[in-house]
């Protein structure tokens, strides 16, 4: 399988792709409505049970690691250097001060990335691309657009293989791929020109094939994969609506009445991301180390 879809037997998997698309939109909207680090952290934590229900904890944690790298960078750099900060919170290395306002700004931004990332990962890993395409068609998205989405998954591995063939062929014609950086950039032309031509030819041929498979035929089209909105979808949608209404209420009327975004929360979340990132770095180094000296033992 070329997509990120992981077939599992779970409630989230059995939801209609349309419900899940609405869910992603809901997550994005929520992450902007809850414009506060504490609330966003709450949102992130409350999304986690869904990951557990979808039985995707391990693949989720692996994919979210990369987003965490962004979070660490944003929180550290913005926390220190963003000019909106005035109130100092704490200091490292003598001169670098984290300020409250800039930390709030950075936390909102990085938690938003994590929240949206979680929603997207949930969607992508639990939805078969073909189901997504047929759901889009049900939403009156043009058939050809759904096809483009779907065929992308199909053409990427083909292009990757062609790229390898072109590279090897050009190397066999003495193309230097290990030279200095300028040489290598120059070499991109003899690599990409044939690759583009091959890809265009393939797509051209595919267009004839599609024509022969009645792709441009007008009238009703049917799909092998069935997607139905059932009671589970309706309850999920209702749940989302309820949460959304609550969020808006919170935003409009309650924002001033509580103060969860304290210095401690900001500091701990910053240190938390550092610790996790440090852990990842150590793991990475250990792996490299093992790779280098593994053969000796």
């Amino acid at each position, binding site marked *: *399988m*070329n*997509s990120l879809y992981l077939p599992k037997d779970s409630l989230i998997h059995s939801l209609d792709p349309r419900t899940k698309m609405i869910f992603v939109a809901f997550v994005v909207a929520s992450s902007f409505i809850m414009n506060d680090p504490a609330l966003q952290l709450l949102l992130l934590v409350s999304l986690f049970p869904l990951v557990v229900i979808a039985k995707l904890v391990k693949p989720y944690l692996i994919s979210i690691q990369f987003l965490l790298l962004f979070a660490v960078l944003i929180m550290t750099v913005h926390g220190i250097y963003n000019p909106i900060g005035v109130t100092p919170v704490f200091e490292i290395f003598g001169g670098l001060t984290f300020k409250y306002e800039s930390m709030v700004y950075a936390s909102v931004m990085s938690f938003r990335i994590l929240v949206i990332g979680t929603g997207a990962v949930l969607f992508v890993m639990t939805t*078969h*691309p*073909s189901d997504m395409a047929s759901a889009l068609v049900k939403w009156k998205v043009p058939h050809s657009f759904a*096809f483009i989405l*779907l*065929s992308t*998954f*199909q053409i990427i*591995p*083909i292009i990757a293989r062609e790229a390898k063939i072109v590279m090897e062929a050009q190397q066999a014609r003495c193309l230097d791929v290990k030279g200095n950086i300028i040489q290598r950039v120059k070499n991109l032309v003899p690599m990409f020109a044939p690759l583009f031509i091959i890809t265009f030819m*393939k797509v051209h*041929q*595919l*267009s*004839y*094939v*599609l*024509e*022969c*498979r*009645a*792709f*441009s*035929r*007008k*009238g*009703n*089209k*049917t*799909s*092998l*994969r*069935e997607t139905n909105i059932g009671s589970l979808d309706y309850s999920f949608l209702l749940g989302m609506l309820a949460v959304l209404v609550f969020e808006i209420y919170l935003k409009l009327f309650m924002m001033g009445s509580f103060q969860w975004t304290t210095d401690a929360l900001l500091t701990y979340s910053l240190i938390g991301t550092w610790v996790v990132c440090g852990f990842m770095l150590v793991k990475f180094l250990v792996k490299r180390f093992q790779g280098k000296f593994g053969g000796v033992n």
Partner: protein
Amino acid sequence: MSEQAIEVKNLTFEYPDTEEPVLKNINFTIDYGEILGIIGPTGAGKSTLAMCVNGLVPQVIQGEIEGEIYVKGMNVHESDVAAMSEHVGFVFQEPENQLSQMTIEEEIAFGMGNLGVPRDEMLVRIKDALSQVGLEGFEERSPLALSGGQQQRLAIAAVLAMRPTIMIMDEPTSMLDPKGKNEVYDVLKNLKAYGMTGIIIDHEVERIAAYCDKVLVLDEGEVKMFGTTEEVFTEIDRLHELTLHAPQVTEFLSQYNRTFHKNAALATTIEKAVRSYESANK
């Protein structure tokens, strides 16, 4: 006169970027249940001719066309390719370029979906098509995980599921290894048993001799020879003039006759050739 499966009348076609027509005044007919083999050197216009029959030329691939083509009594130029695809299936040369879906069953269902076949019917047809090409049990796999021969058989299955009466194959085995070729030709043999009408373009004259009822020799856009397999392949000198050759058994008998001044009847299949050789030796 009864209606023919395919009738081509005075067909002339010219691509916009060429000086000379690629097809010149072509005439032939195929009856229902017959399989026509088209042979000829590269660049003779074989693929263009095949694509004319289902309307890809000139509707998708532009050019100047004259003459008329009737498929099952319908004028191809008055119909469009998508509508023709219900009657004429087309299998291309390269297996991989014909596959666009995530799994094998979806690949087969794709054409049917475009025709608006209901889902229950689809499931039946998928099963049928897969058993016809010998790919049962592969439904959930990715088409890219198949071998070349299997991919080409899948492409054939995808066309078969649309239930055309006429099947056109443009060099379906040229990208395949011998095993893959055998796989594809075994499928063809099945189709013939089902009574399907077909056009096959191939360079392997042995296969053409074994599977086709009629042969059309195309050279520089002109029909040089057209007739039953026997008629065409026994005119060895004519074939040699066109830089083509007859099946090896026919070539053998011809050479044998010439070298030993015998008079063995030329045959195109091994079985007939053995008998002919034996009777000439008596």
